[in-house]
C-alpha cells in the first residue's frame, strides 16, 4: 500500500477509458483529469483554469460531458470515460473533428478537445441546434483565440454530419 502527499492510503479505481479497462491505485484526492493525463498519459484533455470554468478538461463520463477537473478519480470507479483520443484519430476523424478542421474552429487548440467533447454531447442531446442553442450549449467552454464564430459553425456542421451518418460519440 503506497502513501501519497495526502498522507493517506491509495484507493483502487477500475475505470474503462476509451474502451479499455484499467485498474489503478491512486491517492484518494486524485482528480479524474490527473488520472487521465498523468496515470494514463492521455494528455489530450487539458487543465486550463482548474476552477470548473473553462471546460478544457471536458470528457464524457458514462456518456455525458463533464468537467474532469471537478470529479475525483474514485467517483469514476466502474464508469466509462471517453476522451478526445477515443473520439477519433488522425486517420479516422470523428465528424465533429472534421467539422472543426473544415471550419477553422481552432487557433492555438488548447480549448479544442474540451470544446469538441462538449459539442458531441450537445449534438447527441438535440438535433435541432441553431446558433443560439449552440452558443448556450458551449457556455461551459471558454476560447481565448477564436471569438467563437467558427466554433459555432463547426458545431452546427458537425452535428448535421453526425446525424447524416448516424454517428454517436463512441464510433470513431
Amino acid at each position, binding site marked *: 500500500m503506497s502513501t501519497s502527499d495526502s498522507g493517506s492510503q491509495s484507493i483502487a479505481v477500475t475505470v474503462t477509458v476509451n474502451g479499455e479497462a484499467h485498474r489503478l491505485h491512486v491517492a484518494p484526492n486524485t482528480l479524474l483529469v490527473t488520472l487521465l493525463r498523468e496515470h494514463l498519459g492521455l494528455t489530450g484533455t487539458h487543465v486550463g483554469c482548474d476552477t470548473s470554468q473553462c471546460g478544457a478538461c471536458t470528457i464524457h463520463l458514462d456518456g455525458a460531458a463533464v468537467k474532469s477537473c471537478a*470529479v475525483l478519480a474514485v467517483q469514476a470507479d466502474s464508469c466509462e470515460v471517453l476522451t478526445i483520443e477515443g473520439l477519433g484519430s488522425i486517420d479516422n476523424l470523428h465528424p465533429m473533428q472534421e467539422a472543426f478542421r473544415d471550419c477553422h474552429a481552432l487557433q492555438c487548440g488548447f480549448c479544442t478537445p474540451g470544446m469538441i467533447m462538449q459539442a458531441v454531447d450537445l449534438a447527441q442531446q438535440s438535433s435541432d441546434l441553431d446558433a443560439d442553442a449552440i452558443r448556450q450549449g458551449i457556455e461551459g467552454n471558454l476560447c481565448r483565440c477564436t471569438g467563437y464564430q467558427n466554433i459555432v459553425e463547426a458545431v452546427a456542421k458537425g452535428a448535421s454530419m453526425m446525424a447524416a451518418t448516424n454517428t454517436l460519440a463512441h464510433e470513431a
Partner: protein
Amino acid sequence: MYVSGGMTLIPSMKQRLAAPSDLIDLSSLPELEGIEQLNDAQGSMLRVGGLTRHNEIAGNALIQQHLPVLGRVAAAIGDNQVRNRGTLGGSIANADPAADLPAALLAMKALVNTQDRQISADEFFLDLFETALDAGDIVVSVDFAPPQQAAYEKFRHPASGYAVVGVLVARYADGVRVGVTGAGPCAFRACALEDALNQQFLPQALDTVAIPDAGFNSDMHASAEYRAHLIKVLTKRAVASLLS
C-alpha cells in the same frame, strides 16, 4: 461529509475552503433516484429524488408535463457539464445564496424528505450556507406542488452563471408565492410582493411596494441596492410573462 454531484464540494476542496477528512459518495443509492407523481389525482405532488442531475430534471417528461417551470430552472443552472453532474439534493443541502433551486422550492411549497423526517421549504433555508439539515441528514427526495402557472426570471452573472438575483413567481388557487435567490444570505419568500400580487396580479401592482435592501448581499457583482431593484424588475417580468 457526503458528496453528491460534487460541483460545489470538489472545487471548494481544491481551493481549501473545505477539507473533509472522509467523503461518502451518495451516487449509488437507488433510494435517491427517480421522479414520480405521488398519486394520479390532478395537481398531485411531484417527488424528485435527491440524486437527480439538473439535466435529468430539465429533460424529464413528467416534469415537462406537470412542473415545466422546474425544468426551466434546472436548465438555467451553470453550464451543460455542471448540469450533467450537479444534483437537486446537493444543491439545496449546500444552499449557495445564488443557487437557483432554493427559489423554486420556496415558491412551489416544497417538502424536503430526509431519511427520517420531512422539512417544509419555508423552514429549510436558514442563513448563509445554512439549512435545517442536521449532520448526517441526506436529502432523499423533494416534493413539489404543481402551480397553476409559474415563471422564473434570472439575472444571470455572465461568467459564473449564478443568479445575481433570481425570482420564481408561482400562482396557486390559494394565492401567489414569490421565491427569491441571490439577493440575501439565503433564498427567501418576498412576502410584500406576494401580498401585492394577491390583491392584483399585475406588474403595476408592485410599483408602490418598497423592497428594503438591509441585509442584502453587496459585492463586486452588484450592490445591495441594485439587488433590491432587480427583485422588483424580475418579479414584474415574471408576472408579465404569465399574463401574456
